[in-house]
């Protein structure tokens, strides 16, 4: 029997997800023994035309990482969808929009203005910004169009499964690959990680007090937390209670509170709103003025609570003023 064909593609991503595949270490040899990698721009020299030449659905599984924010990424995502049996959104950016999704708090014009003409490092330049087409002596060059809005993969194409994480851990990647090879996949649309909150598997869970209440909100840069005690109980914002488990609390293992990269639990309507709800409930301050002072210590609530999920949240982006 021919080995199943597998492809990897990256959209708006940092390369960390590609690194996660390499992090499989010697297990990657087992993967390569079991499958044929037919497309992987970061590691193998195949071109778009090679993918176009493949018959439809001939790739068994495509792992696509990164958010989608340019016309080229959309085209490639659609091409991969056409050529693949299964498409798996790999990592937080493809799953929910991820860190690049925070660009949805601006729009293309604001971003271009800052990065090509107003920002201090470019303010003395000529203000030229990328255009989609430019004429040079050698001919006309074309660049993809950057959108106003960053999207998660499932806002552009149909996605079969999601591997969450920034990046996904070797364990959940291994489990997913094994499930695919064994043909034992859960219903379509499943996020291939735990279904319970991170606290459930956190080693500090047993130090969490019976009733978790805090008098103050602190930041990790302001004090040295006790690595043996629940970070929430120490006043640090830890996203554990509103984040899907499956990573085995790696960040907590590394003495950092959870930042929420596995995304919200199933049936969460809006990840940021849920996080606001839980943080505000455990702050044990009743005086309006004092409560205000404590809540003000949450620096950048949008950035903290929608860190990986802004494009797939209910509002999705900052309001665009439409010219009528």
């Amino acid at each position, binding site marked *: 029997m021919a080995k199943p064909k597998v492809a990897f593609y990256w959209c708006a991503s940092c390369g960390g997800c590609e690194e996660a595949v390499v992090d499989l270490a010697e297990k990657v040899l087992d993967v390569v023994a079991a499958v044929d990698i037919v497309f992987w721009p970061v590691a193998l020299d195949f071109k778009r035309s090679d993918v176009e030449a493949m018959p439809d659905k001939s790739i068994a599984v495509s792992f696509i990482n990164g958010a989608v924010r340019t016309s080229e990424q959309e085209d490639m995502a659609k091409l991969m969808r056409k050529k693949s049996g299964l498409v798996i959104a790999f990592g937080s950016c493809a799953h929910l929009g991820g860190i690049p999704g925070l660009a*949805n*708090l601006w729009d293309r014009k604001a971003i271009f203005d800052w990065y090509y003409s107003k920002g201090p490092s470019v303010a003395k330049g000529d203000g030229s910004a990328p255009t989609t087409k430019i004429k040079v002596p050698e001919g006309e060059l074309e660049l993809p169009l950057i959108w106003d*809005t960053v*999207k998660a993969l499932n*806002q552009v194409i149909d996605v079969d499964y999601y591997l969450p994480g920034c990046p996904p851990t070797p364990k959940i990647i291994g489990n997913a690959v094994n499930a695919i090879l064994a043909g034992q996949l859960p219903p379509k649309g499943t996020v291939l990680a735990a279904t319970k909150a991170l606290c459930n598997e956190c080693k500090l869970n047993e130090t969490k007090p019976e009733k978790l209440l805090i008098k103050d909100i602190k930041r990790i840069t302001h004090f040295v937390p006790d690595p043996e005690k629940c970070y929430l109980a120490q006043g640090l914002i830890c996203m554990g209670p509103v984040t899907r488990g499956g990573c085995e609390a790696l960040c907590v293992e590394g003495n950092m509170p959870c930042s929420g990269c596995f995304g919200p639990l199933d049936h969460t*309507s*809006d990840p*940021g*709103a*849920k996080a*606001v*709800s839980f*943080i*505000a*409930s455990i*702050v044990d*301050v*009743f005086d*309006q003025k004092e*409560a*205000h002072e*404590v*809540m*003000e210590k*949450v620096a950048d*609530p*949008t950035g903290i*609570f929608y860190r990986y999920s802004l*494009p797939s*949240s*209910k*509002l*999705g*982006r*900052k*309001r*665009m*003023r*439409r010219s009528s």
Partner: protein
Amino acid sequence: MAQALAPPVQAAQTRTKETEYEPKIVAFFCNWCTYAASDLAGISRMKYAPNMKIVRIMCSGRVDPSFVVEAFRAGADGVLIGGCNPGDCHYKEGNYKTMRRYMLLSRMLQDFGIEKERLRLEWICASCARELQTTVDKMTADLKRLGPLDWKGV
């Protein structure tokens, strides 16, 4: 054909010009205080702006911030949360939780370009029908000034 279509289009334009914009307010009122106040306002035949759609909940603490976000996404121009005065909560501390949630949520919504005036939290007691009246009128006026939110999303 083009001629036949022309009159209705013109009519639609004049209609939007003549009719004043009426903001849509979704109100979450606690059963024990603010909802009772709106009941009292009704019984006392007080007049106030008809722009509010009330959702009765048992406690303002039941207002999950995602209700507010969903209301804006679904087309509300403003959201008004009404609860008992501090210390008066039927469930002891529900309104305090709402107060703290509001503090974060309000900042977050502003990052999304939703003005502060579009989300209000008010403590209105069961006998404060007059206060309810002025709150709704004031909020309606504020929203008329801001114009429609007209959330389109991604």
